[in-house]
């Protein structure tokens, strides 16, 4: 059995979706953890869900890294357990220094909510360990700041080290400009850390876990996460 922590900051709004998706897909228990908690003892993995933590004031994720729960979260990452971010969770993990790069505003300068297609680039992460590279998945995005940036040398190292785990692609699997919803460099939709236990993506697997929602591809990511915690 694995226990999942789902972090809740003031302004987080996808905690219910993530909790429900984890329980529905993996059958494992998950619990909401308030940002003022100082411990994540007893949890095998943590998910930082989407929303607007601390109102996205300063910048997305910029204040959340000062919340008390970040200390045990960083310890968790250092211990090799799985730490995963979705959307605003991705931004928070970047701001906390657990993942590379930063997010700019979308090139459209607008929030964008729609289905995108993703190509799995590497299976060396908690979100992709059950997926074959080259697999394409469909799920929604919903963000205003998902435009992934990193310096040329950082980007080169990320690519060389296969730390890019998802890329936006078109129906044919091509990482084309037209398929890029926000202007991310190299169509990057998700990355992992060097060690391979911290990973995040901008799209929402927590909105694609039942046919009623228009797709079930998000299940594959939660299945991977479950598998990672058991390995």
């Amino acid at each position, binding site marked *: 059995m694995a226990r999942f922590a789902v972090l809740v900051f*003031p*302004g987080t*709004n*996808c905690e*219910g*979706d993530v909790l*429900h*998706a984890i329980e529905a897909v993996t059958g494992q228990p998950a619990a909401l953890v308030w940002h003022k908690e100082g411990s994540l003892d007893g949890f095998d993995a943590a998910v930082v869900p*989407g*929303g*607007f933590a*601390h*109102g*996205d*004031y300063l910048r997305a994720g910029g204040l959340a890294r000062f919340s008390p729960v970040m200390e045990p979260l960083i310890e968790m990452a250092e211990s090799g357990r799985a730490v995963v971010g979705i959307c605003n969770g991705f931004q928070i993990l970047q701001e906390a220094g657990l993942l590379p790069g930063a997010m700019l505003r979308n090139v459209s300068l*607008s*929030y*964008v*909510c*729609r*289905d995108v297609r993703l190509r799995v680039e590497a299976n060396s992460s908690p979100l992709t360990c059950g997926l074959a590279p080259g697999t394409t998945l*469909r799920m*929604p995005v*919903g963000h*205003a700041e998902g435009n992934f940036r990193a310096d040329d040398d950082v980007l080169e190292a990320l690519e060389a080290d296969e730390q890019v785990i998802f890329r936006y692609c078109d*129906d044919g699997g091509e990482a084309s400009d037209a398929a890029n919803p926000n202007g991310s460099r190299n169509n990057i939709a998700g990355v992992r850390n060097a060690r391979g236990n911290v990973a995040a993506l901008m799209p*929402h697997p*927590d*909105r694609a*876990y*039942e046919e*009623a*929602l*228009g*797709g079930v591809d998000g299940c594959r990511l939660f299945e991977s996460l479950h598998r990672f915690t058991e390995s």
Partner: protein
Amino acid sequence: MRDAATLEAALASGLSTEEFRQIGTLLGRPPNPTELGMFSAMWSEHCSYKSSRRHLARFPTESPRVIEGPGENAGAVDIGHGLAAVFKVESHNHPTFIEPFQGAATGVGGILRDIFTMGARPVALMNSLRFGPLSLPKNRALFTGAVAGIANYGNSMGIPTIGGEVFFEDCYSLNPLVNAFALGIAPADRIFRARAEAPGSPVWCVGSKTGRDGIHGASMASAAFDEEAEAKRPTVQVGDPFLEKLLMEACLELMQGDALIAVQDMGAAGLTCSTSEVASRGGAGVEIDLDHVAQRETGMNAYEIMLSESQERMLLVVRSGREAEVTRIFDKWDLDAAPIGSVSGDGLLRVRHQGQVAAEVPCRALTDDAPAFDRPAARPSWWPSPEVTPADLPEPTDWNAVVRELAGSPELASRRFVYEQYDHMVRSDTVVRPGGDAGVVRIKGKELGIAMTLDGNGRYTARDPRRGGALAVAEACRNLAAVGATPVGATNCLNFGNPERPEIMWEFTEAIAGMTEALEALAVPITGGNVSFYNETEGQNIFPTPVVGVVGVLDDATRRIAQHFAAAGDLLFLAGPEGGDALGASAFLKEHHGRTDGRPPKPDLDAEVRLGAFLRAAGAAGLAASARDLSEGGLAAAAVESLFAPDGSRLGAELQVECAGRLEGTLLGEGPARALLSVRPGDAEALAALAAREGVPLAAVGSVGGDALRIRVNGSRIVSLDLDGLADVFRNSLGRMALA
């Protein structure tokens, strides 16, 4: 108390000489300036409904499902499973014209507070928007600014915006409309009401600090604009959706227990309105001390504190002895919460400030005793609008061009540019996304789905207010039926011009009459709503624009009818009365001929009732692969809309129709009570039998499939538009116009 206010001050604040005299009579003395400000806000059209109250009483408001009708912060209907849907629509028109981003954003914030004030967790938003033509840069700024503001607030709150409408007409250039709808879910037996009882109970102010923003917003919203309108920017409130998210969570957490007697949100007229309304509903009084109100700025006087419309604040009436629970929960969410006074038994609103009594007014004088007018109404000389028929129009020669033009027109193009800026999937309950006739959210763990739609056609109402009112209700109910849902309750936002003009009052009373006829025929009660008068700038009035929000239930959300074509080979059927070729006030007239005249189609309410029953039965039996109501743009528009699904998939179709005379009416007529269905070939016979049983005419009009939209008339093909090109025109035109 300070000196008495003068008649000049009263007139300057929007009150009439007669009203000023009436205040003196109610108080037994002249009001002081603070009291005058309180009366000016509470007796404004916006707060008092003084021109509309007697007319609104005509709406049907009862049904076995209604838990809370008009009068509370929002209406509530029983949706089964022990749950209630709590919903309302409200306007934020005037603030949006002055400052589109904040004006529209705080419209969303305000309507959400109305919902969670009732103890309901908001689960869906919609909005209805009107702007002037996008050819003018100012209108593009208003449109994009308002959409961005709505997106910012709703997205940050984590509540999906799942539907709505936007239209463009010249008359909205100087007076855009922003109507925001919200719906929440509460246990049916735990609806909170805003009635102060039990004298001695502490009254708390929670949430944001009080500042000088929005002072006299209610009065501003109750007057016509002139060229100085933009100088009124300080009367627009500034929203903080993050704070409201925290306030919502804190309130809902507190409402889990029973520490609260009453909750009232602070919207228009701020502390004045919330204290006097909560007290007069409960037959009580309230005494508050403004020194205990957390303030954002120094040196605020009683007038400013009482009339501030700072956002994200709530008034709580707490059970004596339970204050610690309030403190604990608001501390958790890092929000200000302080007792500012208590409920009294004397019926007075007594306001203390810096050791003095700053105001002392009977609560009822501000609320129930507000004036109510029976303003004169007079039919305008242009009535009735002349009919427009194809014989009056030059005949189109290139139907490919006509269909392409309409598919990319401001009236009919996809609203993707708008709804993709709204988070419409957060909460992972959205089972019918925007872009269909109605949005649907499910309730996790239950089969239940809740469908909702927001509809109005100002052009129709302008040319025939009675028909327009009835057609707005009929279309909303038809939209719900098209997803398979049963309407259970309605809310409305009545956007009209200056009620002091008799022809405007005539439009208003006629529209209400039409809406009432349709609501009664379709057995849908009104549970609340909002009136926005004085939508007049520089003497120009908007089209009368009643907007109707109807909520429906789907007992089994998995049985919802899809909104887009499902499979090649499916057959197309047009359900509903023949002869729906009316072109008066149609989208085709407007977009192709540049005319907004003519008389809208005659409502056929019996046919609407039959069509609704037929669509729901077809949905429940799984006989409809997709359905679309016919409205603006008629059959051709319904076909175009059905081609492109929100997940990016697409299917072509061929429409085949017979037409003895001119084609415009057949393809683009807007006759009511009709829907386009796609059906698996094997189900066609059963569908025809069902239609016969329900008394709904059904005509075969083609099939789904191919890589184009094709239209064949009397056997010959007049339209063939490839899907790639049509998709670009339909899906991207509105964005191109907005960002030009």
